[in-house]
């Protein structure tokens, strides 16, 4: 049957029918729908897609800004960033990783296994293969070797032609020229961890950042870090580099001007170190201690020493596992800042608080004479002086200079728990002072609730006599005690102790000055403080607990303290609180010698004596 045999009519009727109209309409509709959709996507939503296309292609290789410097109050440079040369690898530009690593190992004279280890394990991420690195961090850069020697750099430059994808880069590296000195003030820096990055990514941090991990480096990280620069690059869908679009210069971080007096700091470091070493030889074990010096006029910390200490330079290029383990395994915990974290009972140094409280609240008069029998029956419990015998009838000043427990038990008894706690808290004990480095411990002032929770019994009425002489469950840090002394000296103003006095930007312009914040004016009378100072001024006099420790030509005030540990079975912790000179003091000192044995006058006071003598350039007659 042939088509030509069909009647033409049939075809015509089909052609002119509704089917054909529907067919044409469907075709037209399809084209109209396409045009409508194109109008929507390209015209209405065009700008949205245009910015999505731009976001697709532009990436930034961050270039770290040099961290800001740290100076002492006189402009001594304490912490800086020095340029170091590193060998960095850009994964996407490497064609044959195995051959590259072989050649690099030869060029740098480093074991190939070490280079592979660094290539696959960095920034806290562990990859299995080079391809994974190239996929997730295509333009790195991944640091394979840092602190290159001149010889390594020369060989690397020679081999550069064969080493595509390997860059020789200058990178700022944190440098602490005084090494261990002041380590607890500065803290240290290190690679940001994954967790830290997650917390801070909204603050402009990137996964390759070096951040402050402790001390000022941590507390002021946002100011010290500066603004990272970067190289804008265009990448393709695989993240491969297509073209460099030009660099954005990093802005160096701000500099910190500290209230620290570096000369005082170094003197204190040596004094503590020598004393701990000497007593350590006596006991046959390593010892720990701390010193804090505060400017009583503004709360600026002038020195802060904690022993044992650490070398922050160990951390700058990623700390070696063995070194880190040594720090962690040391039973004296060198990373622990005793100046703000160690809290023990303060022993008799607390009598500064008890004494000024008793006079201010009127439970005793000025020049009050009390009978010191060497012990006191306090709410049915008899307490005996740690040192033998009583002084008999004694006035306030002599009782304080001689540190009469018998006298101060009575003050505690008269004050009672509530008033004593009020004054202790007024002086800043039992709470953080808010110093500008992390880790501060608030100490403790026992309350009824606290003793119930800790010992299962309520606070006993007799406990007040123990607390009044700085024994029992009270705890304070060296920082708190130095600050108590500063308050006593300056007439009752409790400053917030701080390390940073001013902040300067990279051009040297001061961007912020700290306004010496006052926590409170302690509710003590001038008369009470005068009495306390008069007692402390006599500490080196005959009858004072630190008799024989005077500095010729530089009178200073002080208060010894001795604390039993482990219920009297452990070696004593000893304290000495001082201010010097006694008139118009330049600084107050808290010397804290942890479980050294002996008494405050034997162990802690000589440290203060040496610091004062050396700082004021006086010779000790011996």
């Amino acid at each position: 049957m042939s088509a030509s045999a069909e009647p033409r009519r049939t075809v015509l009727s089909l052609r002119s029918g509704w089917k054909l109209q529907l067919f044409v309409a469907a075709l037209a509709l399809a084209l109209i729908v396409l045009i409508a959709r194109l109008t929507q996507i390209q015209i209405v939503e065009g700008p949205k897609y245009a910015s999505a296309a731009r976001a697709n292609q532009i990436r930034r290789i961050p270039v770290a800004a040099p961290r800001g410097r740290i100076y002492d109050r006189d402009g001594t440079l304490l912490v800086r960033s020095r340029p170091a040369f590193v060998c960095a690898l850009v994964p996407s530009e490497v064609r044959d990783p195995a051959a590259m690593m072989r050649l690099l190992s030869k060029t740098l004279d480093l074991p190939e296994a070490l280079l592979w280890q660094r290539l696959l394990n960095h920034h806290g991420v562990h990859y299995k293969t080079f391809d994974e690195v190239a996929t997730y961090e295509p333009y790195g850069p991944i640091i394979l070797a840092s602190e290159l020697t001149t010889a390594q750099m020369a060989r690397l430059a020679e081999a550069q032609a064969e080493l595509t994808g390997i860059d020789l880069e200058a990178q700022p590296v944190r440098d602490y020229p005084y090494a261990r000195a002041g380590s607890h003030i500065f803290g240290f820096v290190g690679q940001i961890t994954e967790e830290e990055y997650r917390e801070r990514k909204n603050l402009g941090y990137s996964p390759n950042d070096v951040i402050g991990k402790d001390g000022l480096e941590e507390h002021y990280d946002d100011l010290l870090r500066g603004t990272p620069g970067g190289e804008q690059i265009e990448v393709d869908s695989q993240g491969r580099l297509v073209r460099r679009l030009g660099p954005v210069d990093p802005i160096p971080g701000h500099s910190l001007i500290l209230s620290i007096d570096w000369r005082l700091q170094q003197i204190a470091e040596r004094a503590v170190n020598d004393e701990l070493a000497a007593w350590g030889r006596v006991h046959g074990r390593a010892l720990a201690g701390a010193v804090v010096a505060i400017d009583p006029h503004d709360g600026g910390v002038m020195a802060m020493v904690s022993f044992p200490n650490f070398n922050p330079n160990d951390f700058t290029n990623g700390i070696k596992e063995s070194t880190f383990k040594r720090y962690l395994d040391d039973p004296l915990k060198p990373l622990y800042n005793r100046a703000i974290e160690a809290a023990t009972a303060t022993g008799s140094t607390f009598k500064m608080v008890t004494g000024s409280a008793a006079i201010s609240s009127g439970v005793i008069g000025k020049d009050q004479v009390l009978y010191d029998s060497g012990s006191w029956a306090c709410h049915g419990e008899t307490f005996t002086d740690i040192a033998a015998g009583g002084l008999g009838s004694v006035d306030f000043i002599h009782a304080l200079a001689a540190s009469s427990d018998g006298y101060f038990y009575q003050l505690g008894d008269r004050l009672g728990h509530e008033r004593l706690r009020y004054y202790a808290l007024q002086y800043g004990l039992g709470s953080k002072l808010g110093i500008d480095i992390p880790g501060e411990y608030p100490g403790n002032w026992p309350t009824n609730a606290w003793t119930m929770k800790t010992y299962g019994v309520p606070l006993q009425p007799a406990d007040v006599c123990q607390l009044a002489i700085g024994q029992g469950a009270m705890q304070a840090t060296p920082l708190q005690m130095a600050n108590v002394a500063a308050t006593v000296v300056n007439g009752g103003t409790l400053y917030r102790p701080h390390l940073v006095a001013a902040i300067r930007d990279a051009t040297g312009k001061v961007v912020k000055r700290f306004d010496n914040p006052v926590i409170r004016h302690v509710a003590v009378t001038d008369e009470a403080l005068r009495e306390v100072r008069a007692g402390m001024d006599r500490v080196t006099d005959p009858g004072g607990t630190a008799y024989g420790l005077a500095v010729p030509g530089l009178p200073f005030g002080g208060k010894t303290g001795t604390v039993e540990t482990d219920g009297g079975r452990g070696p004593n912790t000893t304290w000495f609180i001082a201010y010097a000179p006694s008139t118009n003091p330049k600084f107050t000192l808290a010397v804290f010698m942890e479980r050294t044995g002996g008494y405050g006058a034997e162990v802690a006071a000589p440290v203060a004596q040496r610091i004062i003598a050396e700082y004021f350039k006086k010779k000790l007659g011996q």
Partner: protein
Amino acid sequence: MERPWYRRFNWLLAVSVIGLSLFGVLIIHSANLHNLDASSEWRKQLVYIAIGTGAMAWFASVDYRRWRRWALHLYIANLVMLGIVMASGHAALGAQRWISLGPLGTFQPSEPAKLILAIVIASLLASSTASGPRDFALTVLAVALPAGLILKQPDLGTTLVILAMLSAQLFFGLTKPWYFAVYAAGSAAVAAFVVGTNVILKPFQRSRLLIFLHPNSDLRGAGWNLNQSKIAVGSGELFGKGLNHGTQTQLDFVPEHSRDFIFTVVGEELGYLGSLGLVTMYGLVLFGALRAVFAARDRFALLLSVGIVTMLAFHVTVNIGMTVGIMPITGIPLPFMSYGGSAIITDFAAIGLLLNISMQRDKLVF
């Protein structure tokens, strides 16, 4: 009286497809600017266009009725080719679609299969003026076998093209509307089964098919292509980023941009105006092709031209539609634009057939 051939010739159709294919070469060149492996594609495409134009001229000169007589032979040859693909075709992009022609490259039998099936369906439905249930059943069965082989490759897109042609040709060929209604209802049920279950389609095909309904899901996986494709087209805005300057194209964010996703290059680099221009060009091609439908002087010619027009329109709509997220991603080329010899030669041959049909309008019918 018969007018000279050049007076009867459908110049609009012939010239517009040649123009379209040359424009395509320009776009392929831009698409592969940074792809060294494919840098010769535009030259090869020129060769395919030359061969295609020759095929178009030859098909235009051969009386279309001859194809009706050859329909059975073509059908068997087509099944054999698809069988060879099934048995020995080598894997390309995870699909068995190609037969190797040695130094001449590869050949994709599913492309001519579309044209051959258009001829086969037209001849089956044209053989009776009644086109009753028997013709209907025979036609569906005849199509089901090769369509099944193509689906198995798996080439879902081509299968859908064939089903679209079948539907349009049945629509015109079945004399009683309710026959077609039965067919439509049956197809809808089958489609629901296919799309709704993993029995026929592989899971990756289903997720690709349905991703356009949830454009923001799985942006790193199945949604990646669609998302990047939309970004490419959308970011072209009114004037485009300029030929050879599309970031999405040149930096490889859009996949397959000389082939299935070639429209994204036009959209991105030539913008809305370029896109409109291209859609208008396809409008002209379809208009020219419709002249053949109107010129058809017998049922075979009518049904064949309807099949071919449907094939072209379906390709254009689904291909462009998928790049802008209103059609599923089925992987069918854009006619006369996408790189690929089998497709371009088949398309030119199809236009040749239409040219012959529209040229015979004036011929006397005995």
